[in-house]
């Protein structure tokens, strides 16, 4: 079953009076439970592709279906709702809420959903914190954590709502190789355990061994899909 279907996706950016095409007609599908890596050199359109799938950027042309919903024609409120309920994000620079501790950061999306009890919220957050190995840091603020620990918090937060898809843009870019490998191992374990679809972009060939499927981009077009 396809969780994502992309047809003729195009994205142009306007730089002054110049139109710069970032994606020039991308077609591909992602099956549910996939662990897919998007690779390519800088400027190839990896981040743009992930941003459009994640409903944080809008396509210039083409269609994107997430689950059974066509997202390119949705308004801001609707796409925000999709982000909350169907998509988890892991950013390159971790992006945690600085004034909340580890547990509160992980709970944050669940509290936004307003459909879980306090006990249920806490239980799910603690289970994921344990899964990412941060039990001893539960009351620590982001500033008191290392880069790897922050990324683990981000992974726990991305998974806490049980999304259909987790998008990770260069999740290991700011980590040393050992930590980066640990993070990908963790993501892979979550993928296998929760059957969550993971799509991550990278230009680090060392992490490709984790990917089940690889989509290679170049100049805004898919040049390899295996």
């Amino acid at each position, binding site marked *: 079953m396809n969780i994502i279907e992309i047809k003729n996706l195009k994205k142009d950016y306007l730089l002054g009076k110049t139109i710069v095409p970032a994606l020039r007609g991308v077609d591909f599908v992602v099956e549910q439970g996939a662990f897919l890596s998007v690779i390519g050199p800088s400027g190839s359109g990896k*981040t743009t592709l992930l*941003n459009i799938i*994640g409903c*944080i*950027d809008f396509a210039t042309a083409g269609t994107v279906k997430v689950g059974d919903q066509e997202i390119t024609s949705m308004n*801001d*409120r609707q796409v*925000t*709702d999709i*982000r*909350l*309920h169907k998509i*988890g*994000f892991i*950013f*390159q*620079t971790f*992006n*945690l*809420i*600085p*004034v*909340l501790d580890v547990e*509160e950061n992980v709970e*944050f*999306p669940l*509290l*936004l*959903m307003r459909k879980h009890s306090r006990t249920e919220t806490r239980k799910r957050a603690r289970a994921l914190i344990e899964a990412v190995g941060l039990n001893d840091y539960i009351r620590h603020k982001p500033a008191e954590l290392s880069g790897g620990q922050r990324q683990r918090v981000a992974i726990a*937060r991305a998974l806490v*709502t049980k999304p259909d898809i987790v998008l990770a*843009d260069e999740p290991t870019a700011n980590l040393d190789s050992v930590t980066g490998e640990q993070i990908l191992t963790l993501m892979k374990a979550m993928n296998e355990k929760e059957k969550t679809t993971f799509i991550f972009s990278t230009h680090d060939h060392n992490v490709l061994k984790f990917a089940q499927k690889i989509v290679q981009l170049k100049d805004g077009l898919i040049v390899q899909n295996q």
Partner: protein
Amino acid sequence: MELIFKIAWRNILRHKGKSLVIGVILFLGAYLMTIGNGVIAGMDKGISENIINSFMGHMVILAGKERSDNVLFKIYGKSVAPIYNFIQIKKVLQDDSDIKYFLPVGKNAALILNEDSDMGRAFLLGVDFKAYRQMFPDSFDIIEGRFPKENEHGVLIPAFARKECYDFMNIWLLPENGKVVESNLTPEAKENRKDLILKDQEVFMGARDDNATADVRVGIKGIIKYKALNAFWGHFMILDIESYREALGYFSAYEKGESVPRESQALLNLDNSNLENMFGESAVVVADKKREEIKSFKPAVRVNAAPLNLDAGAYNLVFIKLWNGADLEEKASLLNKKLKEKNLDVRVVTWKKGSGVIGSLAMIIKGILFGFVIFLFLVAVIIIVNTLSMAALERVPEIGMMRAVGAQKSFIRNMFVAETAVLAGIFGGLGIILGAVTVFVLPAFHITTQNDMLQLLYGGDVLNPILNAGDIFLAIGQLALVTVASVIYPVHIAKNITPLDAVVRD
């Protein structure tokens, strides 16, 4: 909401410097507003009590043909219409159980004629001294001379009016047979002590729209000083009602008693050396007389064979004091109805309307203060907007990430509003509480003043600010307004931060 307030509170603590700047501004605004409201409310109460207890009571009756309700401080020269039927009005007032006192008075402007210098101006209040003292027993102190005896002709000059007479006419007024009290001299009069022109009598000529007035010479019985708001009440020289009527050219009780036609009275009062005035349009107009002629005036001398019924003559106003607890507007309306039923061609207005701008003074000053506070808050809003906008721009990755993980724009808006509201609640609330404490503590210091301007602000001679629930709610409302006004633009910035902005920052 718990999450929003948690984030808001921690952000306040995280950005202590900015929070403190915003907090101090809100604190000062709320503190000053609360104290200002207290002082103005005290002034309003003070002026109200002063006008009611010392000058005109709760309500005033005017002649039906009097155009303006504002009869106390009319433009100089615009006369107040006379009331000729006080005897009938009196019956209505006597039958009203809500009325504690009433006092018919003459009230108009007059010229002060002078053989030694230029003419002066005065406001005259014509009263029966005994009745006046009964209605306003404690309104002024006699600083020189004495209070007039019953039915005695004479005038009480306020110290304020005496100063004006000296400033404009260069004459220092004294009570009859009185001596200069050195301590009561103004600095200018002290400087000119040796050459002071002293007078213990005044010649008044009423100022009426139709010029049908006469001049009357009266002895000065005393110099008075109002206990508060001397700058207002000090304009009014208090004259016995009969002399007042004569000066204004009204029928006096004496004339009524003698049943002599008014024209004949005027002729009888003419001085022998001015017989040519008999052939003028008005036998009693003296506005263009030369000083030499004024010198020949004789004091009004009258022998009253029988007690006069003062009520029979003309008045201009009737001051009314009510028993406490009566509703003013309702009472005025009821009384108007009664007077109308009797076809008495008069109307009743409340002291606020009757005293014109003075009655609304508190409201005017409150408006000015409100404008000042709005200006202060506007400055505060600009500073807060700037600070919060900077904060929003600094927090783009954080806000963008929140949006990315599913926070709607409304969440971001509420987060900013909560941060400002918490600051406003803490610092503004502290300002209001401390302001209220200050207002409640200030009267204990019994701060008094003799300065006319300060007396105006105090609403009397003692600073006695008060604070009522309405003023506190007003301050809270203003704080809320500042909070809302301060967050509109920063919220606009924050709401427009997209998840993409956070990614681009990366």
